[in-house]
């Protein structure tokens, strides 16, 4: 082994570390069969299959994902939070052959493929109202980008060359009419962002989406509002793309001669000239300069207290519904959130490291600049001394952020946890530099108790992946969680029983998960108490390790377990 001057360098340390891991279970596989198979596949030519790993996404896809994912973080599906705990339909569920879904094609062309005998493939170009038979095997295709509202299952944005297949559905009969209550869809090729009422999912080739219908009473006005919101966001995205392309073309253009080209018209000023960033990093400055930091500050300053107000309304909700004032507040928050989301493409363009879009949104550099602008908007700007102290924090935590992004993690959720813990420390240390007045502007009263209420909290990082599981005890939670895992990973009954045993044993041994009964903001608005999600995430990773260690899984199941993104958070019932 290499030893320079007797000290062990990092790589010497790593080689011992990897060897110890191998001694304790991570054995080299026999790749002969895999390579042989791959060689045969190459001779046949590439064939798309459902289980192929998702292809690398292009930047355009990432931009759309970012917009929608960030929206899901900040503008939570509060008004439907309560319905999550309720049965989706009162009538008896039955497995049926086909259900007609109404699809509003908002943008692009959608092809509805019906595989049943005598049925044809029909193309619908926006704006159009299509009827699609939700029947196992039937497909939806988009050659170019496509945006559509799919019955009661929410809106989807499909990237070019996307093909979706109906895998199964559950239906109910209401007043003599057959309606779908859940729909399971496989992504055959391409990628799709599905904006449902309780969450946003991004799925690529090989992924499977399980969608639940919105409750009947909400499927009219709420869908229209949702459609309008998506349209607005689309317009914002297009505007952002245009700006980025203009900037890119200016950057790539050769340097202009000093006099002769002076006849060219001067570049048009930006619609909203960005203000200078308070905190900079040469690696990201050029791209981050495109962000309107003043707008970020103004909106954050306005939105913070509104979110706290909304959370406080949870106690007054009746039958799971917000009052008129609450709905008006929710609409206002959504509107403000759209403005924040419009800034996300520039963050992604900068290549900021982080766990997907919200990781970039909460990068120390972005957070510190947002805070600086927010405090300025609140009339409590940072002093030079505060700015200097904060710069040091931003630099140190940015390095840590990059280091986390560069580390290879066995489980995808380990990356999320590492980033969440790092950012928790960052928010805490940053807040200690503030005066009491500034602190109140950063954290308006009532904003700190629950995730998703504060715009300076790790709830922003974890919320898109959080799935609250109301449960009476560890056994109850284990039953629900193992069902969810079985559904997504495909365990057989024996495996599911073993998995359930591991979850129950380990969750029962975690009193911190059961100490605090869920409150109204959690059960009705899905604003989970601060700290609940990281604690559950920590335990979940340990559970996943234990499952991998003790339960016989197929390689594919192991792969899916490691790639899992969902955090199952126990929500103790009172």
């Amino acid at each position, binding site marked *: 082994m290499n030893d320079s001057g007797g000290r062990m360098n990092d790589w010497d340390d*790593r*080689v011992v570390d990897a060897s110890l891991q*191998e001694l304790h279970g991570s054995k080299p596989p026999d*790749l002969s069969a895999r390579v042989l198979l791959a060689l045969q596949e190459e001779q046949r030519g590439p064939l798309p299959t459902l289980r192929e790993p998702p292809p690398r996404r292009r930047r355009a896809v990432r931009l759309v994902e970012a917009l929608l994912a960030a929206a899901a973080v900040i503008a939570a599906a509060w008004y439907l939070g309560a319905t999550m705990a309720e049965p989706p339909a009162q009538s008896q569920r039955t497995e049926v052959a086909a259900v007609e879904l109404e699809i509003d094609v908002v943008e692009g062309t959608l092809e509805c493929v019906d595989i049943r005998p005598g049925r044809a493939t029909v193309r619908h170009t926006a704006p159009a109202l299509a009827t699609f038979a939700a029947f196992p095997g039937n497909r939806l295709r988009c050659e170019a980008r496509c945006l559509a509202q799919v019955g009661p299952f929410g809106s989807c944005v499909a990237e070019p060359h996307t093909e979706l297949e109906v895998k199964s559905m559950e239906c109910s009969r209401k007043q003599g009419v057959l309606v779908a209550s859940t729909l399971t869809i496989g992504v055959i090729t391409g990628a799709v962002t599905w904006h449902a009422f309780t969450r946003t999912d991004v799925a690529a080739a090989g992924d499977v989406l399980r969608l639940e219908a919105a409750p009947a009473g909400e499927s009219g006005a709420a869908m229209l509002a949702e459609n309008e919101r998506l349209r607005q966001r689309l317009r914002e995205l297009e505007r952002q793309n245009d700006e980025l392309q203009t900037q890119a073309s200016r950057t790539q253009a050769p340097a202009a001669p000093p006099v002769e080209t002076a006849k060219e018209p001067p570049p048009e000023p930006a619609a909203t000239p960005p203000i200078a960033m308070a905190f900079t990093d040469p690696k990201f400055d050029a791209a981050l300069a495109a962000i309107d930091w003043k707008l970020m500050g103004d909106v954050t300053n306005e939105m913070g207290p509104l979110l706290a107000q909304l959370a406080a309304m949870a106690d007054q909700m009746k039958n799971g519904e917000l009052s008129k004032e609450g709905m008006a507040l929710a609409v206002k928050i959504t509107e403000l959130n759209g403005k924040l989301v419009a800034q996300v493409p520039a963050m992604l363009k900068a290549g900021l490291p982080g766990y997907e879009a919200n990781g970039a949104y909460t990068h120390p550099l972005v957070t510190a600049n947002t805070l600086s602008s927010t405090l300025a908007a609140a009339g409590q700007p940072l002093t030079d001394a505060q700015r200097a102290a904060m710069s040091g924090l931003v630099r140190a935590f940015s390095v840590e952020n990059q280091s986390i992004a560069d580390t290879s993690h066995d489980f995808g959720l380990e990356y999320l946890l590492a980033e969440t813990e790092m950012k928790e420390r960052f928010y805490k240390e940053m807040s200690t530099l503030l005066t009491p007045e500034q602190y109140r502007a950063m954290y308006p009263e009532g904003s700190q108790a629950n995730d998703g209420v504060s715009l300076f909290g790790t709830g922003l990082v974890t919320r898109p992946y959080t799935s609250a599981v109301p449960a009476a005890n560890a056994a109850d939670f284990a039953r629900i969680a193992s069902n969810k895992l079985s559904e997504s990973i495909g365990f057989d009954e024996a495996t599911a029983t073993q998995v359930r045993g591991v979850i129950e044993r380990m969750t029962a041994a975690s009193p911190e998960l059961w100490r605090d009964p869920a409150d109204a903001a959690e059960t009705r608005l899905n604003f989970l108490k601060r700290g609940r999600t990281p604690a559950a995430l920590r335990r979940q990773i340990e559970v996943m390790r234990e499952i991998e260690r003790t339960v016989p899984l197929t390689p594919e199941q192991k792969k899916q377990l490691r790639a899992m993104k969902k955090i199952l958070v126990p929500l103790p019932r009172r």
Partner: protein
Amino acid sequence: MSSRTIEHQDVVRLVQQHQVEVWRYLRFLGASNELADDLAQETFLQLLRAPFVERAPAATATWLRTVARSLYVKSFRRPPFLLAEVETIEAAWTGFARDDAGHESLEALRDCVQQLDGRAREVVRLHYEERRSRRDIGERLGLGEDGVKSLLRRTRSILRECVERRREGA
């Protein structure tokens, strides 16, 4: 060995000869088990796609490591290590793997682990065998997370010296 271009059957033979080293090398670089599986497979497929000419086994091993390293780096948006570090990486790896893909070093390490005692033995058991978190280990050993990190690193350093002694004596 004279140089020659290779066919499919040669790829299978080379997989048998070099797969363990390629996979271990990828794990050493930091790849997860699954990523190491995928990249090792891809590395061997490159034997046909890239202009590879088989020469001595050591040269083949070096070629495969270079391809594997390149694929690993490409799996990140930003390089996980600096180009300048490659020499250090290679030195650390060849010092460990020598000419037997690391089999002998691994066996020596197994014996060295058996010789550990006290907290060093316990931390290896908890971290590598039971895969407990640093926090959990810290609670059991009465250490902070940083303390656990330091203890693990010190233990690995002891193990590395032990492996070296055994290999030198062999």
